[in-house]
C-alpha cells in the first residue's frame, strides 16, 4: 500500500519553506513532487521600479547567504551596458569577498548537514568557524549579511590591510583540516548517513542541467571561475574538485575540497592585491540601450543575470535572475527515488537549497 508523506512547507528539516510530497511504499520513496513559491516576492518585477543605485540594494536582498554574488553579477551586467571596467584592485577585492562568502556558505552548509545527520557537536564546530569568517566580512564591510561592497565600475570599500587577513585564512584552513574535514569525510557516523544515499547519476545531472557542487559531485566538471573567468579569477591558480559518485558524500567531499581551494584563492588574492583605485567612472556614466548578461559561480552554482536598459532611462526595463537552486531543486525528485524516508531531509539539504533565491 502506498501513502503520501508531505515534508514542508514548514518542517524541522527545512531551513526555508518549500514542500516535498513523497509517495512511499513502506519506508521507501517511490515518487516525489516539489512545490516552491512560498517565498515569492516578485523581486524581478520590483527591480523595474528601482534606479541604478536602488536596484543594487534590492538585488542584494534576493539571498541572505550569497548576497554579494547577486550584486556582483548585477554590477557586471550593468558594467557591460555602461562600458565601465573595474580597476584591478576592485577585481581582487571582488574575488576576496566572493571567496569569503563561499567559505561562509560552505561551512554553514556543513553545520546544517551535520545537524541533520544527528551530529550536533559538529554543527557547533562549523558554526563557530563560520562566525570567524563572518567577523572578517564584518571587519571589511561593516555588515554581517548584506555587505554592500559592489557598485557599477568597482567596489565601495577597500581592504586596507590585506595581509592581516592571511592569518585568518591560515587559521581557518588549519581548523578545517584538523577537525571538520576528517570527521565529516571519515567518521563512521557521517559515512553511514551519506555514502550511497541520494544518488544523482552523471546522465541525470546533465539532463537536469544542475550546477555548482551538485554537478561537480556527479562528475560534471564545470566551474565558471575556470570556464568563463570574471573579476580576477583568470589570475588565480586553483583546482576544481570533481567527484564521480553523485551521492550525498560526494557533495560533502566537493564542498570540503572547495573550502580548501577557497583558502588557496584567498591567500593568492590577498598577497597579490595590486594598489590603485577602487572604481572607475567617478559616478558619471550612461547606459546604452540593450541587454547584457553576466554569470558568476556562486557557492551553490551558477547565477545568471540578464539586465535590459533603455538609454536615458532611470530604471532597468527588465532584470531576470536565474539562481542555482532553481535548476538544482528539480533534481531532488530523482535523488529521493528509492531512498529511505528517514534519509530524505539530508538528501534535500545536500543540494544546499536556497528557496529565497529560488522564489525571488
Amino acid at each position, binding site marked *: 500500500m502506498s501513502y503520501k508523506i508531505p515534508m514542508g512547507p514548514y518542517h524541522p528539516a527545512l531551513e526555508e519553506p518549500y514542500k516535498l510530497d513523497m509517495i512511499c511504499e513502506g519506508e521507501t520513496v517511490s515518487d516525489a513532487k516539489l512545490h516552491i513559491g512560498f517565498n515569492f516576492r516578485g523581486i524581478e518585477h520590483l527591480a523595474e*521600479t528601482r534606479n541604478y543605485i536602488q536596484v543594487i540594494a534590492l538585488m542584494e536582498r534576493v539571498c541572505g547567504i550569497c548576497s554579494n554574488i547577486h550584486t556582483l553579477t548585477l554590477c557586471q551586467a550593468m558594467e557591460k551596458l555602461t562600458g565601465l571596467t573595474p580597476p584591478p584592485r576592485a577585481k581582487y577585492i571582488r574575488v576576496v569577498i566572493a571567496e569569503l562568502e563561499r567559505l561562509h556558505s560552505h561551512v554553514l552548509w556543513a553545520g546544517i548537514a551535520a545537524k541533520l545527520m544527528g551530529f550536533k557537536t559538529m554543527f557547533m564546530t562549523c558554526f563557530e568557524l563560520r562566525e570567524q569568517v563572518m567577523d572578517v566580512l564584518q571587519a571589511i564591510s561593516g555588515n554581517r549579511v548584506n555587505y554592500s561592497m559592489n557598485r557599477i565600475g568597482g567596489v565601495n570599500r577597500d581592504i586596507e590591510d590585506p595581509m592581516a587577513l592571511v592569518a585568518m585564512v591560515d587559521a581557518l584552513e588549519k581548523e578545517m583540516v584538523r577537525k571538520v574535514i576528517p570527521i565529516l569525510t571519515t567518521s563512521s557516523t557521517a559515512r553511514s548517513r551519506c555514502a550511497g544515499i541520494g544518488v544523482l547519476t552523471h546522465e541525470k545531472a546533465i539532463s537536469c542541467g544542475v550546477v555548482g557542487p551538485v554537478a561537480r559531485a556527479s562528475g560534471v566538471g564545470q566551474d565558471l571561475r575556470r570556464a568563463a573567468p570574471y573579476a580576477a579569477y583568470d589570475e588565480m591558480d586553483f583546482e576544481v574538485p570533481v567527484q564521480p559518485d553523485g551521492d550525498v558524500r560526494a557533495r560533502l567531499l566537493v564542498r570540503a575540497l572547495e573550502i580548501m581551494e577557497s583558502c588557496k584563492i584567498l591567500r593568492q588574492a590577498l598577497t597579490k592585491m595590486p594598489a590603485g583605485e577602487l572604481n572607475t567612472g567617478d559616478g558619471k556614466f550612461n547606459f546604452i540601450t540593450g541587454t547584457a548578461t*553576466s554569470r558568476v559561480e556562486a557557492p551553490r552554482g551558477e547565477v545568471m543575470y540578464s539586465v535590459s536598459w533603455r538609454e536615458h532611462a532611470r530604471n532597468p526595463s527588465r532584470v531576470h535572475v536565474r539562481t542555482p537552486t532553481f535548476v538544482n531543486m528539480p533534481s531532488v525528485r530523482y535523488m529521493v527515488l528509492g531512498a529511505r524516508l528517514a534519509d530524505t531531509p539530508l538528501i534535500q539539504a545536500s543540494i544546499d537549497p536556497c528557496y529565497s533565491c529560488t522564489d525571488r
Partner: protein
Amino acid sequence: MTTLELIPEATAETSPWTEEGGVFWLNYSDLNVREVANAMNALQARFITVTAYQLPKEEGLRLEYHWDIDGRLLGFVFTLASKSIESIYDLCEAADWIEREIHEGFAVDFTGRVYEPLLLRSGDMMGVNLREICSPEPPAAGSVGKEEVAK
C-alpha cells in the same frame, strides 16, 4: 541550413553569430525552438534558462533561450506575437521549471506540454501576465527618494 550546421562556423569571418552583452547571439531569422534544442543536445550544450521580455504595446513578447558550451554563452531570440511557442520540455528536462514560471508570470503558452499545479504563485489561475495585472508605475521626475523607498 540547420542550427546544428551553423554553430561550428561561429569563429569564421562570415559567422552568423555576434557577441553582444556577454552572449553569442545567433542572427538567423527563421529559427525553430525545437530545432535549436535538438542542436544544443547534439552538441552536449547545457541549458541555462529562458528570459521573457514584455515588449511595448502590441508587439508581444520576446523570449531569449540560453545554453552554455564550455563556458561560452549562446543566445537564441524568439519574438512571440501570439503568446505561444512550442515547449522543449520533452527534449530538455532542465527547461521544465522556467517554462512553467514564464507561463505563470507572462501567460505564454508552451504548446505540447502539460502544466502541473502552480509553481510560484498561489491561487488557481494558471497563465496570467503579472505585468498587465500590476504594472509598475514609474515615479515622476524628481521624486527619487522617500516615495520610492516607501513603496
